[in-house]
């Protein structure tokens, strides 16, 4: 299926919009979870912190304010419908242009620098940034773009280990729990704890990141892994770290696990956390130019 004329300009506009709106409209599943956590909190300091979270969420939605100052590392998860005839190079360029336009036009803080010289182009782009993951949808006519402005407070709390098969699932549980507790207040809890199990080292971390983008309330389709998600969440919420690490009943909103098969000698595990706002925003774009935004 051929895409319409100016399709890549449309992608650019949509990406610009995704970046700006993602920083202002916290997804409804996250808002619900923060409200529930606030309602069940018993500690005074934690209640104070949750009231600040809810006030900032409201300011984002009602006054169109950016909820957190961190504009993040821009990450796009792109799924190209198999029926679409798309020029991948032009698509990537359009995504970069949309990111830069949002930064310039809003304006947004440019959080992106070169790794050694720390040079900032003031565009939120640079070598290999924005990060664009590509995937393909079978029998689909839709270009699906999921955007995350990944904040650094939580991104800096990323951990991976090449466990060995003899460590088993017990090793995985220990690793996840110890890393979440070690991270303590730094990732702005309550977090979504993304866990990757299996694959190679790079795939394992990508799975952990992708797991954080799953909407709250979704479970891994394999019941054994879904049970592991529940067990780890329960344990994490017994640690008492609470919002901002000041003590409280909710330290994580969810544990999401994604898996891949791995090598006979390998047992990789990765943890990637998402802060309490868990910003994400999705757009579906059809070949004829129709656009639908969501989460």
């Amino acid at each position, binding site marked *: 299926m051929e895409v319409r004329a100016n399709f890549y300009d449309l992608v650019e506009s949509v990406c610009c919009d995704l970046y700006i709106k993602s*920083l202002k409209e916290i997804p409804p599943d996250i808002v619900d979870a923060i409200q529930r956590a606030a309602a069940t909190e018993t500690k*005074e*300091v934690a209640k*104070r*912190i949750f009231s*600040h*979270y809810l*006030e*900032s969420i409201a*300011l*984002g939605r009602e*006054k169109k*304010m*950016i*909820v*957190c*100052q*961190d*504009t993040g590392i821009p990450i796009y998860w792109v799924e190209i419908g198999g029926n679409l005839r798309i020029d991948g190079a032009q698509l990537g360029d359009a995504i970069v242009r949309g990111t830069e336009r949002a930064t310039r036009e*809003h*304006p*947004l*803080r*440019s*959080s992106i620098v070169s790794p050694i010289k*720390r040079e*900032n182009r*003031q565009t939120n782009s640079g070598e290999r940034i924005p990060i664009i993951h590509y995937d393909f949808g079978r029998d689909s006519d839709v270009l699906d773009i999921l955007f995350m402005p990944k*904040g*650094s*407070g939580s991104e*800096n709390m990323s951990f991976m280990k090449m466990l060995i098969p003899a460590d088993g699932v*017990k090793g995985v*549980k*220990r690793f996840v*729990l*110890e890393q979440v*507790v070690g991270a*303590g*207040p*730094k990732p*702005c809890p309550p977090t979504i704890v993304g866990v990757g199990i299996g694959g190679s080292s790079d795939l394992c971390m990508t799975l952990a990141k992708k797991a954080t983008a799953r909407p709250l309330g979704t479970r891994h389709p394999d019941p054994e892994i879904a049970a592991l998600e529940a*067990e780890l969440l329960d*344990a994490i919420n*017994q*640690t*008492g*770290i*609470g919002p*901002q*690490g*000041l*003590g409280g009943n909710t330290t994580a909103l969810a544990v999401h696990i994604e898996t891949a098969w791995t090598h006979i000698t390998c047992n990789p595990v990765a943890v990637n956390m998402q*802060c*309490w*706002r868990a910003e994400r925003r999705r757009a579906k774009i059809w070949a004829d130019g129709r656009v639908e935004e969501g989460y």
Partner: protein
Amino acid sequence: MAEFRFPTPLNESDVRQLRVGDAVWLDGIVFGVRDGNLIRVFDRGVAPPCDWRGAALLHTAPNVRKIGPGKYEPVSVGTTTSMRMDRFTEGLLRDYGVRAILGKGGLSQQSAALMQHYGAVYLSVTGGAAAMETLQIEEIEKVYWEDLMPECIWQIRFKGFGPMTVGIDTHGGNLQHEVQAQAQQKTAELLRKMGIG
């Protein structure tokens, strides 16, 4: 848990009365600092171009809109993770007379000991709640070291900045450290219960 409201700059007697968990509001100038500008001060040996005696320093790097030469208005001003700046605590307190460090996530036990010694506190701002914080700003008065944008030194005037939670007091309290130490103990217990000794 008591509530306090102070103008800046702060006196030693202001901060010595605070206890962890207390709620604090500040009025007046707060300086925005973070990785880039503190590395310039302490690793490159460039003295900060402002007077930090009694100052409250906020770990931040805001979103701003330029409205004239050296003049900016706030778009979104929030708070970043303090632990990255932990090794600068001693110099800030000893050499520059800072009385309060404002940030998120807390500082180390070493910083807490320095705060007890020099008479300074750590005020925990609610991370991620920048929208609320931005509305408490009256004006970005001055910006130093614009070449580091957005990691400049920001001279921001607040009205009713808070409530912040006292995270480290001058009496040996370090709330975030205590919560995390308890969580570590609990984790050992949980692992045993899960059959992972």
